[in-house]
């Protein structure tokens, strides 16, 4: 909860800025206010990963610097406290500690970045890796490109296929992907990364059915090398389900979530 410290600091700096009518202190105050806002979001949503947080802070810092340097007069006032700190005689009592603390702070940051950590490094996760040109399904070569669900064309039996797909889902998939197709099945908490949800607009809604077929068929072990680092626990379903069964369950998850498979036309 050290964002509370940042919040308090930003309030103190904002008061100083208001009293001194200083653009520099206003910028610092706004920066820390923004930082504490982003961190405090973790009270209501999962915390923003440090990677993204750093980019947002950099953007905020640059934006503030640009804003306060548009007008020459404002920029002069923005620089004034810094210049005063460096050259004015009466500031020497502050100058000495700043000159000592600044390199120490930098040294600590360098130390903190380089010291061996027990936690594994951050992973860049490719949620939807690119598929191979073709893959093996029980010895048969299947091309991913242009692969369509053959059952979808059979309009007369579509409702039956979906019903059968539902049964397959509840026998095999529900334990991880959940009763509400939200990736929160009873086993889900044991996995990291968590199983994918099918609801929403950013998983199966983004993918053609052929892609989903490839993912279900080959599971975690079938992920291409360029999708690493990866640690998916998804089984290789072609060992347990037939081609037709996989197409049925795909029909079902699209139907149940109200999503449409991605098409290019």
């Amino acid at each position, binding site marked *: 909860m050290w964002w509370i410290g940042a919040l308090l600091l930003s309030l103190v700096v904002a008061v100083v800025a208001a009293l001194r009518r200083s653009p520099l202190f206003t910028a610092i105050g706004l920066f820390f206010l923004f930082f504490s806002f982003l961190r405090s*979001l973790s009270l209501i*949503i*999962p*915390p*923003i*990963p*440090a*990677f*993204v947080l750093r*980019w947002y802070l950099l*953007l*905020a810092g640059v*934006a503030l610097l*640009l*804003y306060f*340097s*548009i*007008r*020459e007069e404002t*920029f002069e006032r923005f620089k004034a406290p810094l210049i005063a700190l460096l050259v004015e005689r009466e500031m020497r009592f502050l100058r000495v500690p700043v000159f000592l603390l600044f390199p120490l702070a930098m040294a600590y940051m360098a130390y903190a970045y380089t010291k061996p950590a027990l*936690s*594994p*490094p*951050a*992973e*860049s*996760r*490719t*949620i*939807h*890796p*690119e*598929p191979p*040109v073709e893959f093996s399904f029980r010895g048969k070569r299947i091309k*991913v*490109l*242009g692969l369509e669900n053959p059952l979808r064309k059979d309009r007369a039996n579509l409702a039956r296929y979906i019903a059968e797909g539902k049964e397959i889902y509840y026998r095999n998939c529900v334990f991880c992907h959940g009763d509400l197709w*939200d*990736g*929160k099945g009873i086993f889900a908490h044991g996995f*990291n*990364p*968590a*199983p*994918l*949800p099918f609801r*929403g*607009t*950013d*998983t199966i*809604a*983004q993918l053609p059915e052929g*892609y989903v077929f490839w993912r279900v068929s080959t599971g975690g072990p079938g992920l291409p090398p*360029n999708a690493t680092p990866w640690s998916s626990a998804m089984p290789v379903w072609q060992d347990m389900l037939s081609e037709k069964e996989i197409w049925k369950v795909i029909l079902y998850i699209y139907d149940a979530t109200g999503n*449409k*498979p*991605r*098409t*290019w*036309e």
Partner: protein
Amino acid sequence: MTSEGSALGYPFLKALKGVVKILAILAISYLAIYLLNALLGDGVDYRNLPILGSRNLIWLVAQVHLLLGAFLLGVPMFAVTVELIGWKKGDGRFDRLAHDFTRLFTLTGTIAAILGGILLVSLFILYPGFSGYMRSIYSPTWHLYIGLVLGEVISMYLYYYSWKALEGRKGMHILLGIILNLFGIAIVFVTDIWVAFMMTPGGVDEKGNLVSMWDAINTYAWMPLNIHRLIANVAFGGSIAAAYGAYRFLSAGDDERRAYYDWMGYIGNFIAMVGLIPLPFAGYLLAMEIYAFNEQMGISMMGGTFSWLWFMQAVIIGAIFLAANYYLWTAMEKIEGAERYRGYRKYLLLVIVVCYGVWLTPHSLVATVEEARALGGAFHPVLGVFGVMAAKITAVFFLIMATFLSFMLYRRSDKRPTVSWAGKGNLLQVLLLILSAGAIIFLGVYGYFVPAAVRIRMSMAQVVIVFIFMVLFLIIEYFLYRNAEAVGRIRWGDMPGRSQYALIFLAITFTWLMGLMGYIRSGIRKFWHIYGVMPDRSPQAYLPAHGVSTFIISIAILIFFLLISLVFWMAREGRH
């Protein structure tokens, strides 16, 4: 070097010199290929260059050659447009500006030609199998290319060196400039044939035999690439010209020069922005054609290996928009009357920063184990919303509209409308803005709830809305500010140095972006020289890590700027 000669014979003599130079470079290149082949022995498909590696050499030389080529094609477009404006307005400053830019490209042409020769030799010596195949298919287009380059060189020299001689016949001189540009555009079209064929081949059978020459020319990527590169050349030429203006501004010794180069930087930046605004649409068209050719290639490009480079692209383009707006906002400070519009800048900055933030939020997050666990799912519940195309496209349109508005504020800073309906006109513009922004947000949000194919069509609707908004706004603006009264003057040259560094930053960032995007376009072929037709069987038939590729791109950009700095410096010395 002088262009002051008034006799028409002098430009022809110079053009002849230029032709001899090109032919000499070509002859030396062919001779080098012949001698090296004789020395190294024939019958191989690949040769390896020690230490640097064959691929890296081709990459660096091709990239720098391409950038110089883009500069050579972009600057004449800029120069002729400026010259034409000057002629029509009767303003000598424009003519001087056009002439100053033209000074840059005769020297650049020589450097580009030498690099072209090195590229030719490198390709035929290091990749004889691939080069031989391309020659067997595209021999006629190669000869056409040589003819076009000679035409470009002749018209370039005639255009530059006849400036004084044709002073009294400006129309004739501008016609020369147009011919120069036609040659330039034709060169882009011909070189794009080869590049587009490598990505999205056509006109050949499964074994790579030529079936139809026209189909081998008119491939999926050809026309989108032509459009994309032409527009990008305008923006690139403008940004480099603006950087030149900035460099001359910063090194100017007196107020008169400072005023002139400040104005030069402004015009360059204006042209760059005019080119930049439609560029995302042209890029979108190219991406759609890539998907149409091969869905998998499209997935590799947008959602696979290259997705992290798109993150970098977002960071760079956002920085370009930010810097361009910053330049306009600082430039408003030199305009008497601009104080009326100062207050709007913070809102525009806020819109730009928020949109920039949305654009750079990745869909797939880099997360530690603890962070991934805390997410409790595959995507962040809030950031995930920003990560998809519906949000990103909407953010880009707002970036474009905000930049457009910054420019409009700049334009009207020293004026006050005199028409009786000024208030209503302004209100109409505000209503137009609110309606357009509302429609774009609506379509953006609606995009979350429809299939991708529908969303893609909706983003086209967003393009149309932004375009209509800008056109209608400009029409109202034109009538509103016709016969407007001046409320102050523009103090050209009264600009802080940091505004000029923003222009230099823009040029470097723009060039960097070109290198990065070019790599993605080329890299999606992966282990193919010609996708699906000719596999790459060299030891370098793999994609380098992103860190390696961005490093090589950066080296190429550095070499380009060292060369272009040399051109700037020589142009400056030549003036004295």
